[in-house]
């Protein structure tokens, strides 16, 4: 159903390392710790989104990140002269998409909870329908999910589910890759540690990635 993560790992590392290099170059100007942390997180999120390609949530995420003024320097550094094209490709929302306000859901929720409260106050026998309560819970939690998934507010039902699935997979991959990069730095900092063969194999792979100058090969492929 979805693209395999093998390709995405390579793309992610390239992007992320590029972003790290750019964040590092910021150190020449006085930069706060907060800003450096933000630029690393930004590189990571962008790397994850670009590695995935164009989906609903990646477009929403990239547009959101690109819309913030403090991020433009970073984005332009990463994308180079393709900044304009890429921001257009990843524009969000598309003209025909409108943000749903979900009025129906809110109205029925208010109506139901009001009715339930009135019943409780009257002290009459508890005729709260469990299905209504369950439905409210589902609606509330769906709203929360919509806020968590980039672009979620435009989606409903099965689209929301499939985007959520895709997003969770990408998030997991992002975490795993950042962890392995961090572990690599741990190994490097303790130079007395005996390196096992798998570590140097991974190192060679990373070296190949780092030396490749073709930063946006992955865009031609996607």
């Amino acid at each position: 159903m979805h693209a395999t993560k093998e390709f995405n790992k390579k793309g992610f590392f390239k992007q992320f390392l590029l972003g790290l290099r750019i964040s590092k170059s910021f150190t020449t100007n006085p930069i706060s710790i907060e800003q450096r942390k933000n630029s690393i997180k930004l590189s990571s999120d962008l790397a994850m989104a670009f590695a995935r390609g164009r989906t609903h949530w990646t477009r929403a995420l990239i547009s959101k990140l690109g819309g913030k003024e403090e991020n433009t320097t970073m984005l332009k550094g990463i994308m180079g002269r393709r900044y304009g094209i890429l921001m257009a490709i990843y524009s969000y929302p598309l003209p025909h998409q409108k943000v749903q306000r979900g009025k129906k859901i809110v109205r029925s929720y208010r109506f139901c909870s009001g009715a339930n409260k009135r019943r409780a106050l009257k002290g009459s026998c508890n005729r709260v329908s469990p299905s209504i309560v369950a439905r409210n819970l589902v609606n509330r939690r769906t709203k929360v999910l919509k806020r968590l998934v980039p672009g979620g507010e435009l989606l409903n039902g099965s689209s929301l589910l499939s985007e959520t699935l895709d997003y969770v997979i990408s998030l997991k991959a992002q975490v795993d890759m950042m962890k392995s990069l961090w572990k690599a730095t741990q190994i490097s900092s303790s130079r007395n540690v005996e390196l096992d063969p798998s570590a140097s194999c991974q190192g060679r792979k990373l070296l190949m990635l780092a030396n490749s100058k073709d930063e946006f090969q992955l865009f031609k492929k996607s």
Partner: protein
Amino acid sequence: MSSQRRTITDEEIRELISKLQTLLPESRRRGANRASASKLLKETCSYIRSLHREVADLSDRLSDIMETMEGDNPQVEIIRSLLN
């Protein structure tokens, strides 16, 4: 992706839900199919939040490491020391 309406089968929805369940850490422990919509949503939301926190935490740790690194090219430093 166009947002044109297309009928999605129950089968596809079931597949999505079961895939999501296999991803969530909770369901792996319990094993049995305890899917109720609200439970699934709740676990998904909390899982996404915990992943966000992990990313933020790892970003902090990586930025600390980067501070102690010399030179302009952090990845070359890492890899060089890996290979040595």
